[in-house]
């Protein structure tokens, strides 16, 4: 273990991280948001899911520094009279959960399909790549509208609220797998011509073993880079879907549905319901994107060979 740590400390990754202020800052911000999301029940002053905290007389209270605000609700309250800070913390949790979950699903699907079509080639390759083209020509919004309409009609709106998180993960995950499949396939095409793959074949390894434990580890850096970008994309997709009312229900709002619910009150002067979740969303996406940029520069084999 100590050996691994000291190896990491002498690596180029650590060196580049240490010397990049943006990387450090965005990493710290992202970790802070992640910790807040994970420990939401401990940190947030109220539990927004509890019906006790819905109190219509408290609705649309401004933040504490504005007249009419109260120290009880630091960032004011939303249209239901819930503490906005607590609701945002729980919403952040849902947004991050969906973002990471959708990217995991995309990655698993995309990596398996990309590996197979890159390695096997021929008709299988053409089939999967055309499938990817078809998938990309559907807007994920359209897919989500279809699926959620069908689901709500079949099982009722109440049931939908309970399974909204896995539903969104599946919709966003399914919509974006071609990104991974294409990236992985391109790397596999480059890697499989290299001599170590030939050598592995000469050694008598089977195709699955060669794909999984020889080629895949060599394709990891583009996958890492893509993943950071895709997490940011998935968070935004979820926000967009929720904003359109296709995502998280009002009872368990994500950042996107909070922005949406505040939107109706923005002209009556309650700007904070939309503004604060919006700022958190921008910070979250920005920090993830900046981490991704740094990772792309660091792992780019054209800039650094190790």
């Amino acid at each position, binding site marked *: 273990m100590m050996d691994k740590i000291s190896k990491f400390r002498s690596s180029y990754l650590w060196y580049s991280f240490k010397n990049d202020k943006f990387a450090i800052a965005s990493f710290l911000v992202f970790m802070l948001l992640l910790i807040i999301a994970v420990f939401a029940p401990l940190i947030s002053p109220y539990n927004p899911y509890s019906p006790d905290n819905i109190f219509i007389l408290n609705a649309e209270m401004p933040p504490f520094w504005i007249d009419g605000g109260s120290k009880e609700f630091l960032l004011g309250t939303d249209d239901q009279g819930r503490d906005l800070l607590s609701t945002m913390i729980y919403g952040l949790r849902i947004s991050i959960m969906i973002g990471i979950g959708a990217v995991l699903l995309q990655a698993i699907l995309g990596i398996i399909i990309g590996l197979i079509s890159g390695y096997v080639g021929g008709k299988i390759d053409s089939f999967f790549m055309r499938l990817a083209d078809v998938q990309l020509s559907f807007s994920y919004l359209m897919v989500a509208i279809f699926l959620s309409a069908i689901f709500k009609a079949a099982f009722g709106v109440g049931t939908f609220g309970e399974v909204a998180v896995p539903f969104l993960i599946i919709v966003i995950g399914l919509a974006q797998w071609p990104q991974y499949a294409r990236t992985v396939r391109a790397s596999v095409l480059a890697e499989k011509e290299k001599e*170590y793959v030939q*050598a592995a074949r*000469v050694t*008598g*390894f089977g195709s699955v073993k060669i794909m999984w434990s020889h080629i895949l580890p060599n394709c990891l850096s583009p996958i890492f880079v893509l993943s950071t970008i895709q997490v940011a994309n998935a968070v935004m997709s979820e926000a967009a879907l929720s904003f359109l009312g296709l995502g998280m229900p009002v009872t368990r709002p994500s950042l996107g549905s909070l922005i949406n619910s505040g939107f109706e009150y923005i002209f009556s002067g309650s700007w904070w319901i939309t503004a604060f979740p919006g700022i958190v969303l921008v910070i979250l996406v920005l920090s993830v994107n900046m981490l991704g940029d740094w990772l792309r520069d660091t792992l780019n084999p054209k800039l650094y060979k190790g």
Partner: protein
Amino acid sequence: MSEKLLDVKNLVVNFKMRSGEVTAIDNVSFSLLKGEKFGLVGESGAGKSVTGFSIIKLISKPGYIKSGEILFKNNDLAKLDYESIRKIRGNRISMIFQDPMMTLNPVLTIGTQMIETLMAHKNISKSEARKIAVEKLKKVHIPSPEKRLEQYPHEFSGGMRQRIIIAISLLTDPELIIADEPTTALDVTIQAEIMELLLQLCDSMGMGLILITHDLAVVSQVTDRMAVMYAGKIIEEGNTLEIIENPKHPYTEGLIAALPESASTKEKLNQIPGNMPGLGKIPEGCSFHPRCTKMMDICLTEVPELKEYKKLHRKISCHLYNEKEQ
């Protein structure tokens, strides 16, 4: 006479191209005794590597073995199915490649690569596999092998990597090693060291060696017998030293004359004029005739056969030598 380890008979390898089928290996036959060292020599594109790969049935897609037998201990490899050939690859027959920088997987430690090779072929535990790996690394003179197992390929020099590759090919104690230009990517002093090591290991373990190279100097130092290939055919085969000292086929003569040592000082280096024909454009008659200095009329029309000439102790495929000399 000891038993035959490998007997390649009338091997034909074709490639299906868009413009039709081309023959890369045309009716090649040779054999290898147990523990014998055999050299395959020729220019780039002569079909040396394809011959090597077809022995373990590793010709990639457009290519396939059209006909012929590859008898490995009286077992025809050309007819084996995928699963059975996999049990022979890397187990009974190992292969060493040209570029040691490329042959090792850059993201796996040496230990991982050695242990997984062993465990793929032998029913042994990880710690036993580790023991064997350490022992083989010692055999190729890698210092402190236990520590080295934890390191990645980029932490080794070129010569060391090639020694590690040799160690990997030795893991399962194979009976035959096919070395495809094993020293081309290394500098001359390391070349000698690697060849010396390979030779010594083959002798001590009784392994057969097929050395594929364009380097006549290496062949003459290492092998017992050799075959010269041109445009997919063997054109001369026999005892290595006899061929080097007294080449009979005009192409072999040209090759040996082209060695820098053959030219006297201050003179231009000798060369064989022209290039080897592309696979689709092999000329009629003897495929070497457009470049041959001793071309006769018959060479334009008739394809010479590879015949054994007892007096000369070798097989030659050239019209210059006729029945009388057999």
